[in-house]
């Protein structure tokens, strides 16, 4: 439409993007679907998208990119297509924060997590505290009482010994506070430039003393969704602590062990459907997992979601949604409606749950989706995160 007056100036050398042509051909093959003719066009498109979303996960990228670690869709695809495919077993298929095991008479929970946070020290915590609390929380989300954890260190040549002492001291303090023992460990040192100071892996074992199975597939229409406190503190703190943004805000990481809070909650609300700690990918990712695993819709009320003004302000400036920002000491709980008052009271009784709030509810339709009633009074979908939560540019 605008090319006529340019005449011979247009470059003649032209090629095509093979990956895009392939994707189109493949999709055309896949989406011929008989029996949908009675639906209107928009519904047909929605059906097509549902099928596209339901198809088997594949990793098309020839190399791992940073988005494979961001906790969103790419991470899920990688886990489904590579790890689950190779390691498949009933425990892993649950895709929970921790595996729930039955060994003889013992009902155990077992989990592992690696920590690569940068910077290593940030307001409200450091990598060591995170490494203990993260694993304690993964066990707590399985309804378990954490017992023992392991600690593996990958250190970079040149890493200051004093920094390591500081990290280890805060691990010891965090373990003591959480009532767990660090009973085994490992140390490796890599050449300068082959690591980023200090990485930590922890694994943990807990005992499940309650006769309950918490599972993302347990949510039912009528249930209520809670968070245990204001969200996004940790993610925003770490982003700001990197110093790249020239934004200063009075926020601290929320890193904390949650096992006592979960114990109190499960005592008060024994029919709790599921617990998840809202780490990478934030509350939004967890709710998507719940909606998808339980085949229900989750309706969230934006005004009800607790977010500190500092976190909200920083998120506004950066163009990110606090619902996707990581927490390290907050959890999402789905409880039956009749137990919600007891659950809230139990959470509010603990300082770590003082800011707990009902943020939404579970309904039957449309299955697999998370919907948000915005503060402005509109509605929209909250999807899984694609890529990193990057700031917008204009």
């Amino acid at each position, binding site marked *: *439409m*605008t*090319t006529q007056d*340019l005449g011979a*100036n247009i*470059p003649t*050398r*032209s*090629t*095509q*993007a*093979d*990956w*895009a*042509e392939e*994707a*189109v051909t*493949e999709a*055309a093959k896949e989406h011929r679907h008989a029996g949908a003719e009675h639906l209107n*066009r*928009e519904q047909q*498109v*929605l059906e097509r*998208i549902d099928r*596209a979303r339901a198809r088997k996960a594949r990793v*098309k*990228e020839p*190399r*791992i*990119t*940073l*988005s494979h670690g961001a906790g969103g*869709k790419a991470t899920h*695809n990688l886990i489904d297509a590579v790890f689950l495919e190779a390691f498949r077993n009933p425990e892993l298929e649950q895709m929970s924060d921790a595996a729930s095991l039955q060994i003889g008479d013992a009902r155990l929970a077992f989990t592992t997590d690696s920590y690569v946070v940068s910077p290593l020290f940030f307001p409200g915590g450091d990598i060591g505290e995170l490494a203990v609390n993260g694993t304690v929380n993964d066990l707590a989300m399985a309804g378990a009482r954490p017992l023992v954890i392991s600690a593996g260190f990958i250190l970079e040549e040149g890493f200051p010994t004093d920094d390591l002492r500081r990290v280890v001291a805060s691990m010891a303090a965090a373990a003591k506070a959480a009532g767990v023992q660090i009973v085994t460990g490992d140390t490796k040192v890599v050449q300068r430039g082959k690591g980023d100071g200090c990485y930590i892996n922890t694994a943990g074992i807990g005992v499940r003393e309650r006769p309950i199975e918490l599972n993302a597939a347990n949510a039912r229409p009528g249930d209520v969704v809670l968070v245990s406190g204001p969200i996004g503190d940790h993610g925003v703190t770490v982003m700001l602590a990197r110093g*790249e*943004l020239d934004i200063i805000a009075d926020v601290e990481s929320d890193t904390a062990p949650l096992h006592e809070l979960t114990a109190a909650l499960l005592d008060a609300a024994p029919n709790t459907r599921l617990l998840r700690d809202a780490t990478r990918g934030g509350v939004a990712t967890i709710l998507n997992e719940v909606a998808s695993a339980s085949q229900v819709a989750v309706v969230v009320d934006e005004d009800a979601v607790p977010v500190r003004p500092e976190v*909200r*302000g920083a998120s506004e400036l950066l163009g990110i*949604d606090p619902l996707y920002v990581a927490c390290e000491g907050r959890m999402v709980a789905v409880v039956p409606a009749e137990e919600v008052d007891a659950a809230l009271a139990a959470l509010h009784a603990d300082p770590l749950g003082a800011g707990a709030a009902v943020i939404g509810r579970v309904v039957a339709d*449309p299955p697999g*989706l998370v*919907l*948000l*009633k*915005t503060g*402005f*009074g*509109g*509605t*929209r*979908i909250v*999807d899984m995160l*694609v*890529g*990193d939560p*990057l*700031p*917008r*540019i*204009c």
Partner: protein
Amino acid sequence: MRFVDEFRDAEKARMLSARIAALCEPGRRYKFMEVCGGHTHTIYKHGLEDYLPETVSLVHGPGCPVCVIPMGRVDDAIAIAEQPDVIMTTFGDMMRVPGGRGSFFDSNAAGADIRMVYSPLDSLKVARQNPDKRVVFMAIGMETTAPSTAMTVLRAAAEGLDNFSIFCNHVTIIPAIKAILDSPDMRLDGFIGPGHVSTVVGCRPYEYVSRDYGKPLVCAGFEPLDILQSVYQLMLQVHEGRCEVENQYSRVVPWNGNAKALRVISEVMELRPYFEWRGLGFISQSALQVREKYAVHDAERIFSVPGVRVADPKACQCGEVLKGVLRPWECKVFGTACTPETPIGTCMVSSEGACAAYYNFGRFTRERVKEATRS
């Protein structure tokens, strides 16, 4: 939160919504284009369409600078990044934009040194810290970001940082709006003007839209109430038979623009004879390049780039979506071959693209959502 909550007041929104509905003539449909991707993002993020009558629809325009970068330019940028001793720096949004053979993310994974920055000045910092490297800033954006790129070049020149250059992909919005107006299948009743671009260019450059094409245009801010008010102003113009350029975003946009910013741009950059926009094709005089005077900071002069055009697949209907002929979901590949994880067309690339916004925030039938969200 101050300066935010007052622009998201649901009560005021209901009032505006009622006024808009009252202006609708029975049996008539209204279509307005929000030119800027930032508006598209706001509309979906806040669920603004819930406040519009069914007969008023918003069409999402070409004003997302990431989305309009053609695949060939991404390939060129990657070709620069893969040359020895180069550090490529870019805004985060650009990382996932696919070229003919992959994105910056892929190229980074394959060994190129591509770093995310939050401002072109950060890129200058990288150049200072790495005197033995050639640091290139992937400059993208409309008139909104062009002044900061130009300032960065001026500063590099003043400091004698000859290892710093920009790969200039700045585009100008006026020719793109004109291209849409010239399109024979254009079906729009008016435009929501790009607020941030207008802080630099002002409102005057849009006067031809009302004068020559008979379409009203309202420059709008980026909070949901700004947009709703702009729709109201457009509806009022249509209702009263007026056709003018109005400035809803007067708290930020001066009518004559920012003379200082415009001076800085024209000191460093000049118009290109033509530039390809993804989805819209080649548009004459629609982009900026670095002037000869600053050749030492111009990556296009320093590095040899392939400069090969990469055609979108034929099934990709971004052009029609951008012109308001098709709604996002009406595109043949929407949500199947083309998704936010693996975007094919421009509109699916950034969260400000029309299709991505629709896919992420609006992918549902209204009735089911109304039912689900009823208290």
